[in-house]
């Protein structure tokens, strides 16, 4: 672990050095990005980088972007953000939860620079926050799984027991149980966002115990690949992963940051930028469903498409009461929907989830 830290620091500084050489001063707007992982992770950072590329494509010569990858959360990130701010960047996107306090500290020293922090919740005059409502997409995954699963058991390769992940698991099983009330989901924590070997092992264990649809909240395509080789279904995570399992891949929830980045940078250009909190889902286009695989029959496609349309139109909320925790406690009463506070702090499993929830 120590090595990983040293490595990321080392690489971060090197790349920062090269990146900053390319910064020119002039009429173009300078946009900086700070990434927590490598852009080659085919997951979280990969998608943010695609957003950056989209921004360059849409705004052409009006913007110039710089990115620094594999920046460790904490003190290092503060230095990197400060470097970007002091070298003439007008907008800086910091794309990991752990950059929250460093971003705020730097923002205080550079009041004329605009900051955008992903997945955080603290805002000041020149710091906005943004995140995506993946649970809307996971509702659709749950519906599809409820239809195509024969064993009635889903397997969930989970990373860490944080509200974001717990919310995804609950959204999936709640939707699946609308189709098949006996549906269950087995959860295995691999304690890593990224370890292809371990993710694959977890998927194998789940398949061995009867799961015939594999879901994941980890970043590598290994679980999809494992599902393909074992002849069961799977959903991709963050990106379309169909190239890793043509038959297994039912669909995926894709993170799409490009349009948001364009709108925010444009707002800076025309002076309308204000500190705001964005939590967009399917309707905002921040979450997108990947094309259906051959395993999704046309009747199920209709159900899934309708759910997407209903969520977009606001007719359907994935967390509509009655929702009880699996201990029997009523969390969302009949006729109401979960508020964002409950969603952001979700620390309970609903009925149908099997497996421990560490720390609860």
């Amino acid at each position, binding site marked *: 672990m120590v090595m990983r830290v040293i*490595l990321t620091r080392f690489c971060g500084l090197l790349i920062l050095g090269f990146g900053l050489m390319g910064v020119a001063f002039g009429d173009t707007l300078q946009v900086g990005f700070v990434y927590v992982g*490598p852009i080659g992770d085919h997951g979280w950072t990969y998608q943010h980088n695609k957003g950056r590329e989209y921004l360059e494509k849409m705004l052409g010569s009006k913007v110039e972007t710089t990115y620094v990858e594999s920046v460790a959360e904490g003190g290092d990130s503060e230095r990197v953000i400060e470097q970007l701010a002091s070298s003439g960047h007008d907008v800086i996107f910091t794309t990991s939860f752990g950059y929250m306090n460093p971003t705020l500290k730097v923002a205080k020293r550079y009041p004329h620079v605009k900051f955008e922090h992903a997945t955080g919740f603290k805002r000041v005059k020149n710091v906005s926050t943004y995140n995506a409502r993946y649970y809307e997409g996971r509702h659709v995954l749950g519906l599809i799984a409820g239809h195509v699963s024969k064993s009635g058991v889903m397997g969930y390769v989970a990373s860490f027991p944080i509200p974001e992940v717990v919310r995804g698991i609950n959204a999936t099983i709640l939707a699946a149980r609308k189709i098949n009330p006996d549906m269950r989901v087995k959860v*295995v*924590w691999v304690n890593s966002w990224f370890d292809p*070997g371990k993710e*694959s092992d977890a998927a194998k264990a789940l398949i*061995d115990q009867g799961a015939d649809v594999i879901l994941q909240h980890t970043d590598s395509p290994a679980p999809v690949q494992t599902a393909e080789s074992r002849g069961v279904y799977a959903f991709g995570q963050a990106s379309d992963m169909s190239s890793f399992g043509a038959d297994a891949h039912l669909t995926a929830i894709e993170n799409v940051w490009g349009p948001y980045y364009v709108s925010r940078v444009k707002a800076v250009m025309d002076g309308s930028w204000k500190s705001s909190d964005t939590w967009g889902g399917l309707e905002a286009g921040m979450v997108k469903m990947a094309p259906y695989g051959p395993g999704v029959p046309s009747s199920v496609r209709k159900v899934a498409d309708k759910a997407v349309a209903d969520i977009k139109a606001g007719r359907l909320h994935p967390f509509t009461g009655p929702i009880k925790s699996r201990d029997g406690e009523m969390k969302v009463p009949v006729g109401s929907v979960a508020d964002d506070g409950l969603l952001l702090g979700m620390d309970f499993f609903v009925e149908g989830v099997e497996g421990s929830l560490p720390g609860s």
Partner: protein
Amino acid sequence: MEEILISGLVTIVTASCPLIFAGVGEVVTERSGVLNLGVEGMMAMGAVGGFAVAHISGSADLGLLASIVCGMLLSLLFGFFTQYLLINQVVSGLSLTIFGLGLSALIGRDFVGFSGLGFPSLFPDFLRDIPVLGRVLFDYNYVVYLSLLSPFLVSWFLFKTRAGIVVRATGDNAEAAHSLGIRVVKVRMLSIMFGGGMAGLGGGYLSVIYTPLWVENMVAGRGWVALALVVFAAWRPILVLWGALLFGGIAIIQLNVQAFGLGIQAQYMTMFPYLATVLVLVVMSKRSIFQKSPRSLGRLFFAD
């Protein structure tokens, strides 16, 4: 239930392979008196080289060969630093890991997002169809059998052949070996290359066979576990095999236990290999029945 046990056993064996390869290779390196902490980096290079060549050539075998070469090339760099420039081995090894991880990421950029080729089992279908035993014994590809065999071959080499004695003599007392006319630097360079090739193969196994894909940092700490394994096994190749199966087994059982719905905190399981290693070190320091580390381990040598 039976199905779960069989399948779990198969997963344990296949998940342990990279640890066995890297661990056995490092045993030889350390037996010659060289401590190479760059296993993680060499595995990463093996993984990216193996995947890249398999992807371009369409041949998984060629990919595995390339992974061995990549691991070896990186270890040559380490050998040059420590044997010729006489730079501290710990520093060189750590640098090698940093360098290997960074370089593999750079090379691998164009290979992210592709799925690799399948890898066939060695034995024909009718053998695999034998109930229970068929799957446990015959359902692997030849690389798995090679990894299970390698500890025995290396053990025979180290303890039964003259060349093996030379390697151990170099590791136990380089000066004495030198005065007997053994070319210490040459022996150590060869041992370092063997360790590099085996680590590379372990990485290649991951990216070509186990999860046929390339993503950055996909070795995910297995190099460090292999290093712990060498100490755990008291520098004995056959104990490396059992240790790898034990470490791999605990990890797989833990995942299966979770899927059953029993709660054990996963962090304890992640700690296990290192705790076990510390425990073995404590036991070893008390008793002399176990051989201790090669006496020249980590010490630089130069002929006057």
